[in-house]
C-alpha cells in the first residue's frame, strides 16, 4: 500500500470516529430530551456528507502543498473544508437538507471533549505563566470579541438592518 493511500485511510477512519461521536451525542440528546433533532435516514446521509466534504477539503489542502504561493500552502485545512462545503451546498440543496438533519450542538460536544483531553499535559505549563499575563488574557479576549461586536452592531445600524 502506498504511503499516500495509508494516510488517507487513516484520515478517513478518524473522520469516521468523529461522525460516529456526533451520532452518539445526538442519540444521547434524544434520550435526555425527546424534543431535540430526531435521528432519521437524512441524519445518516448528512453525516456521510460531512465525512465526504472533510475528505475533499483534506485532499485539496494536500494537493495545494505543491503550490508556489506561501499563503495558499499555509491556508488551513479547516478553511478548505468550509469552502468546499459552501460551494457544494450552493450547487445542491440536497446537501443543505442532509446536513441540517444533523444537530449542531451534537457536533460541538465531542470536539470539546477531544480538546480537553489534548490539553491535559499542558496544564503543567500554566505554572510558568505569570498571573499578569492571565489578567491580560481576559482583556485580550474581551477586546477582540467586544471590539468586533460593537463594530458589527454599528455597521448593522448604519445599513438599516
Amino acid at each position, binding site marked *: 500500500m502506498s504511503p499516500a493511500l495509508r494516510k488517507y485511510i487513516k484520515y478517513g477512519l478518524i473522520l469516521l470516529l468523529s461522525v460516529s461521536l456526533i451520532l452518539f451525542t445526538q442519540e444521547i440528546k434524544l434520550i435526555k430530551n425527546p424534543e431535540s433533532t430526531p435521528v432519521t435516514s437524512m441524519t445518516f446521509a448528512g453525516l456521510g456528507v460531512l465525512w465526504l466534504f472533510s475528505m475533499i477539503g483534506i485532499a485539496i489542502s494536500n494537493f495545494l502543498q505543491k503550490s508556489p504561493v506561501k499563503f495558499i500552502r499555509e491556508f488551513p485545512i*479547516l478553511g478548505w473544508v468550509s469552502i468546499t462545503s459552501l460551494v457544494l451546498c450552493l450547487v445542491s440543496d440536497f446537501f443543505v437538507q442532509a446536513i441540517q438533519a444533523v444537530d449542531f450542538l451534537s457536533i460541538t460536544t465531542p470536539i470539546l471533549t477531544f480538546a480537553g483531553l489534548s490539553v491535559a499535559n499542558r496544564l503543567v505549563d500554566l505554572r510558568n505563566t505569570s498571573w499578569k499575563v492571565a489578567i491580560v488574557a481576559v482583556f485580550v479576549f474581551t477586546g477582540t470579541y467586544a471590539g468586533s461586536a460593537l463594530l458589527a452592531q454599528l455597521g448593522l445600524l448604519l445599513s438599516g438592518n
Partner: protein
Amino acid sequence: MFKNFSYFLIFIFAVITISEMIGFQSIPIGPFNIGLLPLVFAIIITMVLGLQIFRKGFWKKVYSDRNISFAGKYLIFIMLPLMARYGADVAPQIREILQVGWVFIIQEIGNLGTVLIGLPIALLLGLRREAIGATLGIGREGELAYISEKYTLESKEGRGVLSIYIIGTLFGAIFFSVFAPILLDLGIRVEALAMASGVGSGSMMSAASATLVARIPEMESTILAYASASQLLTSFLGTFTMVFLAAPLQRFMYKTLVRGDK
C-alpha cells in the same frame, strides 16, 4: 497499547454521555444569565480528570502520553465535520450575507481590540516585551507563527504569545461561552455577536455561537451562518489584519505609552 486506546474511546463516550445528561444549565448571576452547555462540562471533566494527581492506575491508562498526543494531533480532524457543516448554514443565506458583506469586513477590524484594550492593561501591570506577544491577537497559530518568526519563541515576546496560547487553549472556549451571553444581556444584537464569534479559533467560535443558539434557538440558522461566514473571513483576512494593522498599531502605542511612563 491497543487496550489503552480502547479505554480512551470508552472514556470519550462516557464523558459525552455525562455532559449531555447534565444538559444545558442556565445560571443567573445578578442581571446576567450564564448558560453552561454540555460542551463546557465536557471540557471541564476532561481537564480536571487529567490533572497529575488523578493519574494513577486506570486514569493513567486513559491519560497515557500516547492517547493525549493522539487527541492533540487529530483534534483538527475531529473538528472538520463542524467546518463541513458551515456551508449548509451559509449557503441558504448567502444573498443576505453578501448584502451586509461590508459589515463583516468592518468587524474584522474589531480584532484590534486586543491591542487597544490589552496593551495598556499589560503595560500598567508592568509587562514590557511580553506584552507585545501577549496582546497582538488572541494568540492562535497565526500570531504564534508571526512572533516566532520575528522574535523566536524563546524571547520575551515569544513567552508572551505562548502564555496567551496556553491560556486560550485551556480556557478560551469556556470564556466565550460565558462572555457572549453577557454581551447579549447588555443589549448587543445577536447578529452582531454572531459575526464577532468568528475570532479565528474553531473551538472558541463553536463555544460562542453555541451559547447564542442555546439562548435564542429560533435564530439558530442566522447565528450559525453569520458566525461561520465571519470565521471563514478571519481565516482569509486575519493574517493581513495582524501584519498590516495590529502590528503597526501596537508598535506605535507601545512606543508612546512606554515613553510616557519614564
